């Protein structure tokens, strides 16, 4: 072979070595090319052959081609003769040495050893020496040098690739785990999870979605989401919004939670709570939606809302009842409350007609249907109208409920009118007085099944309260009428009595001309003192009345004693001193709102107990009597008496001032002095 030909062989092997990036194929293909060129049938490579003495060396077999015994041990530790592994490039016939290769599946007699610089050794084995004119141990030196460098680079690359692979494996494991978690979550989720691709097609549909919407995954995946899941009226809007979404990832629903109607497979609509998020996949916007069936929640909310409304209605009803003073206003206010607060379409109250006909006639109403209600004529003897709920409620005394007006064939003739107006349900509640119906409360609603059990119970309570309110109002009116009449009689009696008393007092004064006007003047002063003391008007009235007739007991004193000038005998004086008790006896059984009899009895008692008839002292004497005692003394001393000339006002005031605190109440004395000296009081 010439140099050019040798170069072509080396070039060929160098190309193979340079073309590999991983150790295992590098070694395998290099060995293959060497076998190809040398006619050795078998090649082995051991890298990183350990140092050490001994006949054999345990090392790793890194490549083996051509002998399936060795090929099966690639990657394993094997024992090879040290003579085979150690040393420089060499072709050697060594049948004895090679006979010891336990892994060999054929008999070898020749080996070609090619050390790979510091990386290891490459061995070619053959049953007999292949013919060649070339110094194989020499021509492959540069190739082996190249191979050593390539092994180094490939090892780096393998390590790098292994690192990348480990990262990729980890990432894939993580991804797989995430995927598994997501699948588990999505499978176990109670809410529907629906993913939509950039063309609006469903590409994920979890089991909850199957349950909620009724579609199996294979029935919807790949189909347009909006056409399948959204009611017709929303679709145009959704498609417009989705077009914007695919461009920008934004949309009116993205990132929000809304409540909306969705469409089941069977075509029924139902409320869902939807949360939609956007995410980018392979540069395109996708959407994921969490959808929760809120049918039950919506029903509960509606029920709660209605219950609240009904409770508010009931509460408002109680307020109206408490404040009610007029039945007509009461009925109107209740009907307005049912409509305004209760949220019902309309309401009316009807009473039995007063024209002798057996019929029900609306007497109050509220809401949209006043003209309709106003024209209602419910003849209780007419089968066509008596079959209606209002009539039935009145006739039976029991609540009548019509949840679906359209389906109630017993409804009277005006049912069609009601339906056309939008009335869909109604309830009629009897107004009872002691179990006897006297009217009906009727409520209309726009929705079928509008009255649930709770509402019926509350409306029943409302109607009972209304009935009680009406009955109570009517009872109160009657009581007030009776009380007014009674009060008027009492007043009349009182006025007659006072007139009588005054007439008696005048009679007394006529019998005693010297004291004529004494009682009136005393009353004037007593009233002035009482006012000065700040007494209430009603009490002052009692004082005034008592003063007006305080000497009524003198009616039993003979006129000649009363009119006789000069001193009286002891007996005569005794007769006069009896007049408080006589006066008391006259008035004690007359029912008056003031202690007039006691005033008369005690007006001659004194604080120190020196008075008469009982000799009462201090607190035992009622204030009105203590006050009257002062006014009586002042007026008597200031005025002329048959048995003496007038002493004068100053003398009178001097007397009470002297007796202040002993005979007379000091505070009242002070008030009297103030009235007469400071207030400019004068007897009229």
């Amino acid at each position, binding site marked *: 072979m010439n140099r050019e030909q040798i170069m072509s*062989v080396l070039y*060929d092997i160098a*190309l193979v070595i340079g073309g590999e990036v991983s150790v295992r194929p590098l070694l395998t293909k290099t060995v*293959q090319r060497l076998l190809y060129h*040398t*006619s050795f049938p*078998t090649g082995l490579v051991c890298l990183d052959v350990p140092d050490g003495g001994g006949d054999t060396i345990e090392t790793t077999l890194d490549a083996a081609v051509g002998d*399936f015994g060795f090929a099966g041990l690639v990657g394993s530790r094997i024992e090879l003769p040290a003579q085979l592994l150690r040393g420089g490039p060499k072709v050697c016939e060594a049948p004895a040495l090679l006979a010891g290769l336990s892994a060999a599946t054929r008999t070898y007699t020749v080996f070609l050893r090619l050390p790979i610089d510091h990386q290891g050794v490459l061995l070619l084995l053959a049953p007999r020496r292949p013919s060649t*004119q070339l110094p194989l141990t020499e*021509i492959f030196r540069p190739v082996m040098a190249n191979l050593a460098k390539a092994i180094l680079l490939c090892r780096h690359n393998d390590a790098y690739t292994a690192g990348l692979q480990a990262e990729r494996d980890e990432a894939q494991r993580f991804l797989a785990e995430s995927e598994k978690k997501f699948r588990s979550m999505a499978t176990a989720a109670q809410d529907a999870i629906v993913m939509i691709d950039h063309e609006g097609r469903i590409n994920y549909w979890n089991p909850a979605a199957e349950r909620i919407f009724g579609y199996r995954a294979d029935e919807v995946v790949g189909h347009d989401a909006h056409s399948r899941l959204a009611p017709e009226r929303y679709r145009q809007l959704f498609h417009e919004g989705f077009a914007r979404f695919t461009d920008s990832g934004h949309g009116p629903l993205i990132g929000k939670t809304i409540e909306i109607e969705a469409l089941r497979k069977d075509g029924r609509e139902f409320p869902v709570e939807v949360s939609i998020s956007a995410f980018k996949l392979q540069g395109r916007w996708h959407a994921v939606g969490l959808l929760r069936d809120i049918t039950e929640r919506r029903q509960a909310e509606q029920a709660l809302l209605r219950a609240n409304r009904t409770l508010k209605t009931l509460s408002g009803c109680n307020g109206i009842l408490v404040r009610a003073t007029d039945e007509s206003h009461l009925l109107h206010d209740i009907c307005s409350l049912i409509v305004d607060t209760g949220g019902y379409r309309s309401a009316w109250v009807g009473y039995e007609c007063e024209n002798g006909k057996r019929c029900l006639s609306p007497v109050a109403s509220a809401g949209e249907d006043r003209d309709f209600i106003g024209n209602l004529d419910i003849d209780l003897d007419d089968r066509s109208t008596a079959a209606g709920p209002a009539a039935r409620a009145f006739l039976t005394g029991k609540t009548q409920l019509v949840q679906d007006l359209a389906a109630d064939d017993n409804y009277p003739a005006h049912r069609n009118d009601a339906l056309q107006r939008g009335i869909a349900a109604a309830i009629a509640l009897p107004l009872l007085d002691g179990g006897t119906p006297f009217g009906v409360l009727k409520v209309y609603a726009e929705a079928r099944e509008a009255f649930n059990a709770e509402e019926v119970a509350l409306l029943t309570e409302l109607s009972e309260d209304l009935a009680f309110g009406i009955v109570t109002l009517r009872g109160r009116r009657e009581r007030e009428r009776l009380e007014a009449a009674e009060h008027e009689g009492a007043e009349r009696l009182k006025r007659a009595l006072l007139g009588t008393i005054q007439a008696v007092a005048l009679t007394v004064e006529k019998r005693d001309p010297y004291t004529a006007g004494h009682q009136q003047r005393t009353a004037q002063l007593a009233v002035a003192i009482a006012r000065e003391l700040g007494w209430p008007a009603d009490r002052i009235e009692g004082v005034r009345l008592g003063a007006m007739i305080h000497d009524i007991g003198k009616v039993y004193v003979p006129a000649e004693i009363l009119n006789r000038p000069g001193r009286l005998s002891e007996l005569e004086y005794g007769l006069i001193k009896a007049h408080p008790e006589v006066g008391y006896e006259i008035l004690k059984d007359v029912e008056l709102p003031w202690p007039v009899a006691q005033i008369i009895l005690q007006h001659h008692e004194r604080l120190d107990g020196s008075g008469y008839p009982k000799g009462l002292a201090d607190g035992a004497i009622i204030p009105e009597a203590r006050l009257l005692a002062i006014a009586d003394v002042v007026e008597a001393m200031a005025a002329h008496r048959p048995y003496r000339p007038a002493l004068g006002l100053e003398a009178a005031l001097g007397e009470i001032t002297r007796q202040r605190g002993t005979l007379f109440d000091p505070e009242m004395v002070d008030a009297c002095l103030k009235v007469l000296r400071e207030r400019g009081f004068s007897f009229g």
Partner: protein
Amino acid sequence: MQASAMEYLAAVTASSVEETLGRWRADYPEMGILALVPETEKDAVAELQRTCSQAGVPLVGAVFPALLRDGAFCGQGAWLLRFDQMPYAALHPDLPRDDGLPAALDKVVAGLMPHLDGNGDVTLFMLFDAMLPNIGTILDELYLRLANRVHYMGANAGSETFQPMPCLFDNERIVQNGVLAMLLEPHRGAILEHGYEVPEQMITATSTEGNRIMQIDWRPAFEVYQELARAQYGIEITRDNFYVNAVHFPFGIVRANGITVVRIPVALQEDGSLFCVGEVPANAVLALLRAPAVDTGHTLDTLLDGLAELNGGVAGRDLLLFYCAGRRLHLGLETAAAELRLLTDRSNARRLCGALSLGEIGSTTQWGYPLFHNATLVASLWGEPGTP
């Protein structure tokens, strides 16, 4: 001495086939047939399939440009080669030419492995469709998987026009772009030799793809070829006369042991690239075998010595031979036929049977690395149980 396991049928008819099968089945009830059919008789494959199937005889075979019959080339009839007991044989059509190849070969090997216990001599006998562009790679991959569990031998079938043609068959199918793999046991392999002299001038195939050479020394390959033909023979090489001229300018892949692996360019592609039977390594440095001298004596000596070494002599025995079509064209029909006659005479074989092939597989020594060649003779004994 056993009767020959080779039967030449001058005419492939139902009766001729039935007669042969009937005769053989009496002694070999579990026999099978390997049929070698010349391209001109390819329509006879159907008759073979029908008759063998009716007789319940397993059949495999291939279509070649021509047959070899007792020291001559032959375009008619068919060779029936008897397996005394039908061995493992599998037809694998449409082998991938891309990354799918390793998996396909795993499947091929998976079929073979249960029949290989690692003991005794077994030969993996492969007949390829010559149009496969990656036979060299396939051999490398098979050697990695099977190593020395088997000896390797084979040949390429197909048309010498190098037009795609279903050329591999069994009882039911006739397929292309694949391999017919058979396990011969006991069998000690084949000997391969071409005797082309080692060239002096080296060129570089600067652009190759599988079995196509686009550039030589960084120039369009066809341009280089035209210059060579002009200089050597004073003829103008064209698309039409390309094959008959190019056989005189084959490429050689030089090996370190001094033996050249020949690659004969057989067709000119539309894009000016040269189509070879057998792979050319990418960026390979090739030897250009300018009108190579062929040492027939050395070739035959090598073959016969090798066979003798393997089998203890071929005299009186049946010899299976594949003779490269390109070699025949290069040598000329007369010289090639003479070479064939010489081999027949020198071998003293009882019967020499074979086919003109479009590529050969084997090794120059026993247990050698399996190589894909052009321009060679591949010889092997056939059908003798207990062959040493």
